[in-house]
């Protein structure tokens, strides 16, 4: 089903968007929903910056000699692409936008535990972002997003210091968000909202927050040390002064491997919400999906050195880290199997969020499975730092996490704005994205196995055919991103009125008007039902008679 007849729905007279007016009421707001929208705007901004760099990368690689820029500039392009996309788009995207908006509503709270700190984290994000933009605009930086020493700390002539500072500062934004989420989940739940009634999205955010608070400080101190080393010519990671460059990698990946789960866990949470809603049945294996989120967050901390198999790390360490990398794959497998099983005997609709969710499963599957190739010691000797790695992580991060994010945006768009987007266009966009994505990144697996190194501004001519395919795909992909941008913006004004529960969904967020009032609920809800339970929810107006569903909230 898509739009319920708009006539029966009305926008609430007062909601969080129109409760107060003026720019100050936004910049000084402590309402988690407004802060989420501030994040939405800033995160989108960085996505476009990163996307513009990606576009230039792909155009440049059309020709073996490089089409567009000098090698020096090319190096800056992929570095800035990685930094913008990872630290300023993907890591904050789902937690700070969707998580911020939904987490308090989903557990029946009026706001996060620390609303002012929430606003503060957005400002910290902005300050960090400004540093990074400053570094981009004063010559850019060319260290790769991994900032490996001693290249970054001694040899690079580019604007490393402001960029490192920017990422350092941005870390505190993540930390505060994570802190806020954890405390909120612990202490702010509505009566009746027990741990095992939490929506899986909340579980995923909780797991993500564990990584935020225990991992992020490490990248902060590491980059601080690298920055100090650069500015004061110290020797922590510089072998010429007795330091050890591999130590930097250990510290960097201690955070940055778990950080990949920061990016995927929230998307997994989104998928776990979308699938039961559009299959209209309880999720299969609730506790396994919830538990696997926590398992991924914890075990994810034990595998970091799988990025270092060929640095000369000890053989024994490599064996340990490889084995543990295989263990961390199991909880992901559990999720995939449970999502698939949820479809069985469902009542599946073809609405846009569902298309994204299924696309997510397929692409995450390929991305995750190719992680198994890389975690394999013998194979990683060959694959390390080739385009195979590039393809692997774009499959997970673009095909998985970004798809999850965009799908989630579509799913909750009616809640956020109170309006419906044009369904037909949205489906077209979803399919365009899926096809464009595969054309862009599948050839890169082959390129990688053939041995094409990553971060190459020019390459041997035998690799050209596959590169051209990839660039062609990227242009389709860009179109796929442009479309939602346009119609979602359009729908804010012209979209049909959504009503409180258009799909209908079972969570608490669907039991309050769209858009919700500032304090989220007119009366504090009391939870008496199990999650994703359609059978005991007469209020949803579904089932039995088979009569057309007229969704209406109960408040």
């Amino acid at each position: 089903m898509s739009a319920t007849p708009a006539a029966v729905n009305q926008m609430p007279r007062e909601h969080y968007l129109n409760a107060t007016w003026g720019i100050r009421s936004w910049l000084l707001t402590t309402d988690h929903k407004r802060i989420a929208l501030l994040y939405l705007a800033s995160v989108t901004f960085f996505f476009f910056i990163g996307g513009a760099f990606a576009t230039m990368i792909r155009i440049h690689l059309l020709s073996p000699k490089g089409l567009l820029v000098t090698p020096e500039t090319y190096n800056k392009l992929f570095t800035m692409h990685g930094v913008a996309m990872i630290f300023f788009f993907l890591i904050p995207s789902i937690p700070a936008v969707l998580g911020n908006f939904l987490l308090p509503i989903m557990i029946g709270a009026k706001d996060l535990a620390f609303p002012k700190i929430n606003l503060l984290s957005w400002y910290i994000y902005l300050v960090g972002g400004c540093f990074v933009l400053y570094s981009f605009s004063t010559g850019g930086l060319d260290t790769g997003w991994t900032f490996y020493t001693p290249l970054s700390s001694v040899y690079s002539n580019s604007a490393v210091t402001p960029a490192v500072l920017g990422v350092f500062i941005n870390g505190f934004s993540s930390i505060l968000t994570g802190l806020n989420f954890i405390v909120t989940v612990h202490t702010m739940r509505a009566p009746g909202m027990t741990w095992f009634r939490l929506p899986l999205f909340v579980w995923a955010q909780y797991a993500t927050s564990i990584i935020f608070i225990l991992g992020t400080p490490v990248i902060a101190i590491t980059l601080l040390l690298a920055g100090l080393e650069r500015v004061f010519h110290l020797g922590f990671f510089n072998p010429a002064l007795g330091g050890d460059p591999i130590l930097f990698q250990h510290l960097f990946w201690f955070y940055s491997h778990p950080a990949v789960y920061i990016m995927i866990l929230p998307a997994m949470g989104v998928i776990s919400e979308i699938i039961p809603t559009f299959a209209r049945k309880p999720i299969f294996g609730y506790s396994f999906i919830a538990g696997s989120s926590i398992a991924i967050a914890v075990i994810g901390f034990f595998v970091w050195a799988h990025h270092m198999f060929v640095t000369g790390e000890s053989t024994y360490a490599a064996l340990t880290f490889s084995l543990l990398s295989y263990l961390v794959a199991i909880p992901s497998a559990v999720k995939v199997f449970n999502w698939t099983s949820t479809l069985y005997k469902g009542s599946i609709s073809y609405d846009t969020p569902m298309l994204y969710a299924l696309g997510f499963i397929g692409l995450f599957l390929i991305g995750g499975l190719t992680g198994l190739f890389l975690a394999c010691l013998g194979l990683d000797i060959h694959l390390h730092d080739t385009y195979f790695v590039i393809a692997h992580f774009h499959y997970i991060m673009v095909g998985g996490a970004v798809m999850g994010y965009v799908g989630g945006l579509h799913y909750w768009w009616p809640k956020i704005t109170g309006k419906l987007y044009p369904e037909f266009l949205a489906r077209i966009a979803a399919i365009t994205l899926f096809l464009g994505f595969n054309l862009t990144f599948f050839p890169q697996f082959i390129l990688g196995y053939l041995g094409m190194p990553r971060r190459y501004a020019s390459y041997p001519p035998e690799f050209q055919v596959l590169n051209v395919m990839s660039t062609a795909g990227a242009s389709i992909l860009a179109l796929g991103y442009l479309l939602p941008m346009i119609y979602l913006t359009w729908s804010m004004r012209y979209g049909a009125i959504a009503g409180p529960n258009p799909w209908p969904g079972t969570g608490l967020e669907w039991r309050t008007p769209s858009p919700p009032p500032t304090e989220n609920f007119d009366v504090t809800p009391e939870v008496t039902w199990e999650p994703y339970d359609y059978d005991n929810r007469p209020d949803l107006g579904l089932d039995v008679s088979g009569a057309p569903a007229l969704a209406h909230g109960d408040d």
Partner: protein
Amino acid sequence: MHRTGELYEQYRTLEQQRETASLGMWIFLSTEVLFFAGLFMTYTLNRSTYPDIFSEASKTIKLSWGAINTVVLIGSSLTMAMAVWASQTGKKKALTWFLIATLVLGTVFLGIKSVEYHDKYVEHHIPGWNFQFEPGADAATNAHAQLFFSLYFGMTGLHALHMIIGAGLLLWLIRESLRGRFTPEYNTPVENIGLYWHFVDIVWIFLFPLLYLIDRH
């Protein structure tokens, strides 16, 4: 209204509000642990690579200052704990005095620290261009000793920064306590800043043996 800590609108009960603040503080401290962890890791590796130079470099810092500072800081932890106790039992006068005592001890610590830093400056032991471990030391010895001192200044510097922030928080607490804001029912800021202060103390408890006590025999 603001006197005794009103209920913020996002909470349902005062009890909930207090628990939330305490949990938030603890989680913040756990991120602090991991923040220092990066330094401890760097320290561990470098010390195990250059044990002899680390021990020689450690001997150039004055043990007595470090020991005195340990006593001072633990003393300030005691007064802080007493301050929390005073606020819990409603002894408003005592609270103010304990807070002032904590602040004084903290300042003494920072004062001694700056004397030590000054000594190091005189001895050319500040990492950077003018670094010179011993007259005539060869380049490699210099570099490795500089590693020790980079860590010394990194770790104690970060610690001192925490102390300075703590001192600022104490000043604020003292002001509020003079206004009589804290009662047995409402003393969350005292408790939380107390937690922070003790954490800073704990960091020092590790820094002292690691930096001052290498092979003092």
